[in-house]
């Protein structure tokens, strides 16, 4: 059976034009997807049943047993951490937030290791953003700053920028200028009209210099700024100021480099400055599929997008204090529930070590690095393949994902609702 208009469940582009061929409970072919999408649909590392660590081995247990034991672990904790959420759908994320409130837990999503600093900067100075459709149809200058879309978001350029014609940009390849700013050459920098190579950690100074140039203070700029010549800075500023519609996309190379959210704030303030001359927008290249949705859901319910601490019954947010990496590195939490992400693969070693020390439970379809740190793992359906729900694209557009077939697994929502019910009964 061929299913059309399928939404890809891998990266923040949420491409919704895939054609997927299904045989029974298996995907056998994917059209229009990139290699990442193909691997996501056709990869086969799914855990068959819930497992529990028994000495140096694993034993299979029932779903009921696994969920009850998870509830007991969380109820017993004085500072539980509920982490992940970006690989699942909004309805499940919402139950997660209510569970955190009930438990007095900290709930955090993968923004903590990707675009959390972007949100902090937006909280300071706002967000002159737009949808990807606007960029596709209008942008004649596109800047990728510390992002490598060809490898991380493989269809971004072909669906929205360099290789995609738009309503007002009839021949994108000729009419759109692409500027790539990065610390090294990448596949993306090779297709750029202008490649700006910045010294590692030098983005903040380059952004400050561009702001000063756009403001008319060219006399202040020294011969080079963090490896970038004054002439190139002038050229880039002129390209941006003469654009009809410009769009900056920035990646984790900017959010996680020295200065973190101050880099993003500087980039937003450059965008604001450019808006005195023309129309310019700025958007984060959100990576982990529905991470934008987790920020939305957390914010509806708590007022904060990630790193929400319910220890005192009310929501408190302070990245650096209530973020998972910081909590784990300080050894604060005494139990952890990981849902739809893989901190074992992404977090620093000290954090992974703490996860292995405390009772960690993972709800995830696949065997991954976190499996090896966990006491229990509960396999679920993969959202966008055998589970459906709402996810958000990187530009904040909600998209309903499809279920391609009915498999043998419960979805995240089924498991979390059961867990919530048990904990609510225990709490009375």
């Amino acid at each position, binding site marked *: 059976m061929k299913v059309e208009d399928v939404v890809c469940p891998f990266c923040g582009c949420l491409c919704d034009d895939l054609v997927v061929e299904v045989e029974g409970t298996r995907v056998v072919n994917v059209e229009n997807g990139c290699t990442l999408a193909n691997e996501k649909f056709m990869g086969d590392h799914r855990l068959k049943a819930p497992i529990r660590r028994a000495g140096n081995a694993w034993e299979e247990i029932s779903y009921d047993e696994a969920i009850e034991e998870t509830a007991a672990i969380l109820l017993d904790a004085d500072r539980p951490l509920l982490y992940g959420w970006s690989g699942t759908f909004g309805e499940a994320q919402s139950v997660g937030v209510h569970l955190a409130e009930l438990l007095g837990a900290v709930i955090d999503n993968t923004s903590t290791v990707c675009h959390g600093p972007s949100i902090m900067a937006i909280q300071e100075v706002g967000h002159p953003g737009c949808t990807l459709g606007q960029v596709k149809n209008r942008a004649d200058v596109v800047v990728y700053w510390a992002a490598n879309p060809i490898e991380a978001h493989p269809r971004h350029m072909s669906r929205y920028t360099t290789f995609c014609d738009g309503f007002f940009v009839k021949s994108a390849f000729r009419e759109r200028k692409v500027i790539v700013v990065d610390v090294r050459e990448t596949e993306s920098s090779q297709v750029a009209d202008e490649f700006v190579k910045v010294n590692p950690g030098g983005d903040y100074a380059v952004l400050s210099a561009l702001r000063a140039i756009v403001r008319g203070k060219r006399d202040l700029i020294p011969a080079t700024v963090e490896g970038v010549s004054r002439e190139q800075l002038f050229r880039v500023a002129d390209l941006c100021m003469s654009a009809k519609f410009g769009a900056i996309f920035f990646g984790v190379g900017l959010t996680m480099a020295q200065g973190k959210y101050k880099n993003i704030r500087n980039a937003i303030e450059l965008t604001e400055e450019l808006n005195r001359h023309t129309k310019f927008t700025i958007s984060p290249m959100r990576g982990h599929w529905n991470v934008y949705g987790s920020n939305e859901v957390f914010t509806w319910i708590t007022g904060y997008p990630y790193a929400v601490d319910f*220890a005192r019954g009310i929501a408190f947010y302070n990245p650096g204090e209530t973020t998972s990496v910081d909590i784990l590195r300080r050894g604060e939490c005494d139990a952890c529930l990981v849902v739809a992400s893989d901190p074992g693969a992404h977090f620093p070693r000290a954090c992974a070590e703490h996860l292995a020390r405390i009772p960690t439970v993972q709800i995830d379809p696949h065997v991954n690095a976190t499996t090896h740190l966990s006491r229990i793992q509960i396999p679920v359906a993969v959202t966008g393949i055998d589970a459906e729900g709402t996810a958000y694209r990187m530009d904040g557009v909600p998209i309903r994902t499809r279920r391609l077939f009915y498999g043998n697994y419960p979805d995240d929502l089924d498991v979390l609702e059961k867990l919530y019910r048990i904990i609510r009964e225990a709490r009375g």
Partner: protein
Amino acid sequence: MRVVLKTRPREKPRIPIEAEEIIPQNFLRKDDITVYYGNKERSLEDLFFVTIEGPAVSPDQVEVVLTGETGMIKRVGEYMNAGRIIIEGDIGMHCGNFMSAGEIVIRGNADAWLGREMRGGRILCEGNAGHYCAAGYRGEKRGMRGGTVEVKGNAGDFTAEYLSGGEVIIHGNCGDLPGVEMRGGTLVVGGDCARPCGNMTGGTCMVFGKARQFLPTFRSNGSQEVEYAGKRYRMNTFRGDVANRGKGTLMVRA
């Protein structure tokens, strides 16, 4: 009155304690002081051995001494408006949040957000301070507004972010972006730092060590002599941050 709070042994010592009720004025009129240990509310006596000596009729006559495993205790001295707190060892985050008067002395190290949005009084940290020393809360446009924070050792990144008033003196080194977004007050860095005063709009910052990765958007404004720790130094003076139409003063040792 002298109140001594010695921590009791805790089964899970890494779980943070939130103790904003530990301020001198509370020991004068409250006998039901509670603190949070993780997600559980506990009485002060559950977590501390409490000894009270001598009388007091006003909060400025109260001295609170914290000893033992104090490095994970947060928010001590929050909204303090009189008296004295002495911490014999390290202290957790947010010590002296919003304090308006009185004195806090930390004999060890202080964790992040020491003196956050402080309005008056004095904090002396004899060890090192963490990130965001004398800064503001997330999204807050004004950080510390008055009083003095003095750190004998080093401070972390974003020291005195959004500083709006008062004086911050770090005798050792600072990390990245001290005085970022600062708009008033005085920041003194005795040692080295990186990228001081990005996006500043007002106030004065003096760096007596090396300023690494000096930002290109500060305009030179001559030099002048300044006294620090009993010696006179010639300082190169800059105005900025021009990227932000700033009119702050940044001085770096010549």
